[in-house]
């Protein structure tokens, strides 16, 4: 196992110590249990935006805590959802009196843990909503699967909703924005190599020297399909076309109903992309692919979207939602309107994403 680590059992703790040492001006790490809040404490009167998930996807989510993005993040063990107590304490620490919005990637574990956490926080009198992100079009079906996974859209949503919180959106409007952005975003990922989880020590899947996995998630799980490696043009075109041509996607997602005071299932439909749409294009490295190759991917994404009549108005290119040292990439397209673009452009100052300030 080729990793810059000490004992695998200590890596979450030690890497968080490193983050804390590096960014004391931006973040404050709590160690028992793990959660990360902004250095300045809760932001009075603003909805606290919180996310969390397994570790191994850095800079997401801890690296996105700071002005203009998250108020808190909960790191789990590597690729393992964090637990309700972490999320509950993070909510208590980050709540500025205007409630908490949990951004939950759609994995069985994350969803269940965040639901329990929301219940605990609500029992403390904190207003909490959970919005589930499920943008991975590699998963076709929500009837015979746990539904689409939450992947690249999460990063864009954390940025845009973070800016909206700074703007003073209340919990309901922030939740609505978050839900809409999730409906507007679609992603697809692929891997050239498998990652190795530190505790496991060997590759999560075997893959031939001339093979790639299409439709992977971000947890070293095998993808939807195994193929011979193709050229970047073929890969990027196939992925971009799949995203652009993905049909309407309908499924039920749970949200808290503040009137009924219980979880309700909301039927949610993502409409397909259409000519004239403006999008943010996000080309992401899975961790082991260098930015030079991402530009090769972006080149094709730009060509394909243009041909389709979709206009890229902003882009993000780099390793932002990773799967340890996996080689590979993901592509996310998210339809945005002018107000969303303005929120995207707003200042952000976090360890992992920074501009305008």
């Amino acid at each position: 196992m080729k990793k810059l680590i000490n004992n695998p059992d200590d890596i979450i703790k030690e890497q968080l110590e490193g983050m804390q040492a590096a960014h004391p001006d931006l973040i404050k790490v709590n160690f028992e249990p793990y959660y990360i809040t902004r250095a300045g404490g809760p932001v009075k009167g603003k909805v606290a935006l919180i996310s969390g998930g397994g570790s191994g996807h850095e800079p997401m989510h801890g690296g996105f805590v700071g002005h203009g993005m998250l108020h808190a993040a909960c790191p789990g063990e590597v690729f393992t959802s964090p637990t309700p107590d972490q999320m509950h304490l993070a909510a208590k620490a980050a709540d500025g009196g205007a409630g908490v919005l949990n951004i939950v990637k759609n994995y069985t574990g994350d969803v269940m843990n965040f639901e329990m956490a929301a219940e605990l926080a609500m029992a403390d009198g904190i207003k909490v909503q959970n919005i589930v992100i499920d943008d991975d079009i590699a998963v076709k079906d929500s009837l015979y699967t746990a539904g689409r996974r939450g992947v690249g859209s999460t990063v864009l949503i954390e940025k845009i909703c973070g800016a909206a919180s700074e703007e003073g959106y209340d919990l309901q409007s922030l939740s609505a924005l978050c839900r809409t952005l999730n409906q507007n975003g679609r992603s697809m990922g692929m891997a050239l190599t498998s990652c190795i989880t530190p505790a496991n020590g060997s590759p999560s899947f075997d893959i031939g020297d001339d093979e790639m996995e299409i439709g992977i998630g971000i947890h070293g799980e095998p993808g939807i399909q195994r193929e011979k490696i193709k050229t970047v043009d073929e890969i990027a075109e196939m992925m971009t076309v799949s995203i652009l041509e993905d049909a309407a996607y309908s499924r039920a997602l749970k949200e808290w109903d503040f009137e009924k005071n219980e979880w309700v299932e909301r039927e949610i439909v993502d409409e397909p992309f259409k000519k004239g749409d403006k999008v943010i294009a996000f080309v992401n490295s899975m961790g082991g692919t260098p930015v030079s190759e991402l530009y090769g991917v972006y080149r094709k994404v730009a060509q394909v979207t243009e041909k389709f009549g979709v206009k890229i108005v902003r882009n993000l290119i780099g390793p932002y939602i990773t799967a340890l040292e996996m080689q590979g990439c993901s592509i996310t397209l998210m339809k945005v309107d002018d107000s969303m673009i303005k929120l995207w452009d707003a200042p952000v100052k976090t360890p992992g994403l920074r501009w305008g300030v």
Partner: protein
Amino acid sequence: MLKKEHVISWLSESFSVLEENRQYLTQLDTAIGDADHGNNMYRGFKKVNEQLPALEGKDIGAVLKAVAMTLISTVGGASGPLYGTFFLQAATKCTGKDELTPQEVSVMFKAGLQGVKMRGKAQPGDKTMIDVLEPATTTLSELVEKGEPLDIAIKEAVSVAMEKLKETIPMIAKKGRASYLGERSKGHQDPGATSSMFILEAFSKAIS
């Protein structure tokens, strides 16, 4: 009668078997999941095991509730809330009790099972822990109804569960991470069903 000492030894047996099979469970989860199930279960039950001495004075309901809270706050992933809910719901049927009749044990297991089904919405055949927990619970309660002693009933439940566990191999997963694999999830035994099997075996061992 199931005494609270039995419960304590069930939990410490569970830890032993999960510790022993940490790699094995992770390996199963590598094939169709994200390679963490063994570590998740180990982390949770290690913590449970450490707390057992402090729980010895408590009644069965209190013990199971403490186990639930520990699992919920240490396991993480899908299995954390699921096993946590199992023990939490099981605990509600044992409040204040220092021992359980076979009927009460059967009620306890049913409550735990219902909790997992409520939380995870999985059905038998979805290739999850339900594929072991449900037939084992059904067998146990049927035999207990018929008046079989608890140790016999659980032995039989374990052997039915073992068959059912093997039946998860050809299944296509419909819940949890393995569901993303679709057809490719065939041919692999479900990790969560396997850990459930270990916990049932530990129960059987604890009372015989």
